[in-house]
């Protein structure tokens, strides 16, 4: 089975406090630690496990610039057979549909039985997978938390729905699935693994290679644009307890008693 996994490099929220910049129009991007979007790691792990069972190759692809190569290499260190960078000036400022349009062009140049994405990016809208499927006229399922290969033409997939319940579906190949976190345990990638793929050539495709018309992607094609970032004024927020740890604990115990938290 030929599997494509679409990944993204995002600011890592477990490593960073996301704050506004001094101009108040963007987040503070200096010193941000970037990593692979977390759900994308689960998607790559799932692809590797499927390829191990059914045979075939795993390709990872991202839309971005030179900085984004590092996430492709990381996923190759996990075991992906190859990485491809889709990069072009005209791609800058693409909205979700723009990214899906670029990916569609790439998929049509190649042949994949299964396309996976992470369910959502930290700064994204859980949208590219569903859009890509619709552009390709492939079936789609989101929030996928289990995959079973039925035969060469079908999968049985579970979707995470409310209350911890799982919705089981049969889906025809080729299809697009967006993968929920927790579907598997992504393998650990050590420095040694990263070093082994450090010098592997990563092919780059631009708009003309893919046959993407400039007006359909990038800033020019975007119908959805972020104006700025801000921090909203929420109600009063929490009363932050101050003082020494001992004072804080005493105060907290008083409050807990008053609210029925200690029996």
């Amino acid at each position: 089975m030929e599997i494509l996994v679409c990944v993204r490099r995002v600011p890592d929220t477990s490593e960073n406090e996301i704050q506004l910049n001094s101009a108040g129009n963007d987040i503070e991007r200096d010193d941000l630690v970037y990593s692979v979007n977390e759900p994308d790691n689960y998607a790559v792990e799932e692809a590797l496990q499927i390829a191990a069972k059914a045979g075939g190759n795993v390709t990872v692809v991202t839309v971005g610039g030179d900085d984004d190569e590092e996430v492709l290499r990381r996923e190759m260190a996990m075991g992906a057979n190859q990485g491809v960078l889709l990069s072009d000036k005209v791609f800058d400022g693409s909205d979700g549909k723009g990214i899906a349009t670029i990916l569609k062009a790439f998929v049509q140049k190649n042949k994949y039985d299964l396309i996976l994405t992470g369910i959502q990016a930290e700064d994204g809208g859980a949208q590219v997978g569903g859009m890509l499927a619709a552009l390709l006229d492939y079936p789609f399922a989101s929030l996928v938390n289990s995959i079973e290969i039925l035969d060469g033409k079908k999968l049985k997939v579970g979707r995470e729905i409310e209350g911890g319940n799982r919705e089981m579906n049969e889906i025809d190949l080729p299809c697009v699935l967006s993968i929920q976190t927790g579907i598997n345990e992504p393998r650990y990638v050590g420095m040694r693994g990263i070093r082994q793929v450090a010098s592997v050539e990563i092919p780059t495709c631009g708009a003309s290679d893919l046959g993407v018309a400039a007006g359909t992607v990038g800033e020019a094609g975007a119908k959805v644009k972020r104006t700025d970032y801000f921090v909203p004024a929420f109600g009063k927020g929490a009363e932050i307890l101050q003082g020494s740890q001992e004072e804080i604990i005493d105060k907290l115990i008083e409050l807990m008693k008053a609210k029925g938290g200690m029996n």
Partner: protein
Amino acid sequence: MARIFAYIVHKGGIADDSAAELVAAARKIDSAATPTAVITGWGADLDAVCETLRASYSEVWKIANEAPAYPNAELIRQALVKVVPSGGIVLVPHAHFGIDLSPGLSIKLNSAYVSDVLGIDGIDGDWLKVVRQEFGGQVSAHVRCDVSSGAVINIRPGAFKPQDGTPANGVVVDKSAEVGTLAAGRRYLETVVAEAGDVDITKHAVLVSVGRGIQEKDNIAIAEELADVLGAAVSCSRPVVDAKWLPKSRQVGSSGQTVKPKVYMACGISGSFQHLAGLKGNPFIVAINKNPKAPIFQVAEVGIVTDMLEFLPELTNKIREAKGAAV
């Protein structure tokens, strides 16, 4: 002004809370809006929901079709593409069904898509101005969306408060014939109900709930010890379940359990809306988190900015001492 549609999610003959919230969202786009409800389904359940919708919607478009008796987004997308006129703005609740439906629907309607909208600042020419959250709610973003060729807007459940209004006394319009036969490459099989866990967190008055800040599996014991002295249970947020440190039955949130404790201690939990969606009954929330920007501090009563791994054992000791003294 573009015509606004609200997709109605329903189950067992009862409309989801979002049905009323989408009316409120439509009025934020256009204060004079009379949105049209669009609903798919089958049989008596469908008719029962249509009847209740007449109170809040002036027009209810009913699509009766046996194929999506279970709401399969792949089938329902085809139905909506057949009935929604070009340029229409379609509002959909942003939950597991809307996440499944809307991105592809926007492609097939050739319209714009914005997901998980929690605020609407009105329309400026062709541009609808909305508010989203990014980075787990640490920052918000103003987003503009060109609605000149229509839009699909996913609305965050609970973000728009339903307004009291005069009953719409609406009409139900049967659109079933326009839809015809539906078939898709994805077929619903069954729903597997979650297994009951060792501890029923929905029955506890006090929950010590842990998130990513617990850092490793061995640290769960720190929360267990505090829970023991409090007579509480340990619950958690999604990353702890993803890491397999606690079973799914301990997860609070829209994809986990809905709990109604008196006191909720959120320890190392950032406070995403999916997590908070599982917290009902207005509990007293204590937030303990290293990151002062964590969204949990916006909803908590009391906050402590500190490392839970140091703080919780101290708290446990103090409570143990206090209890010992009281005996």
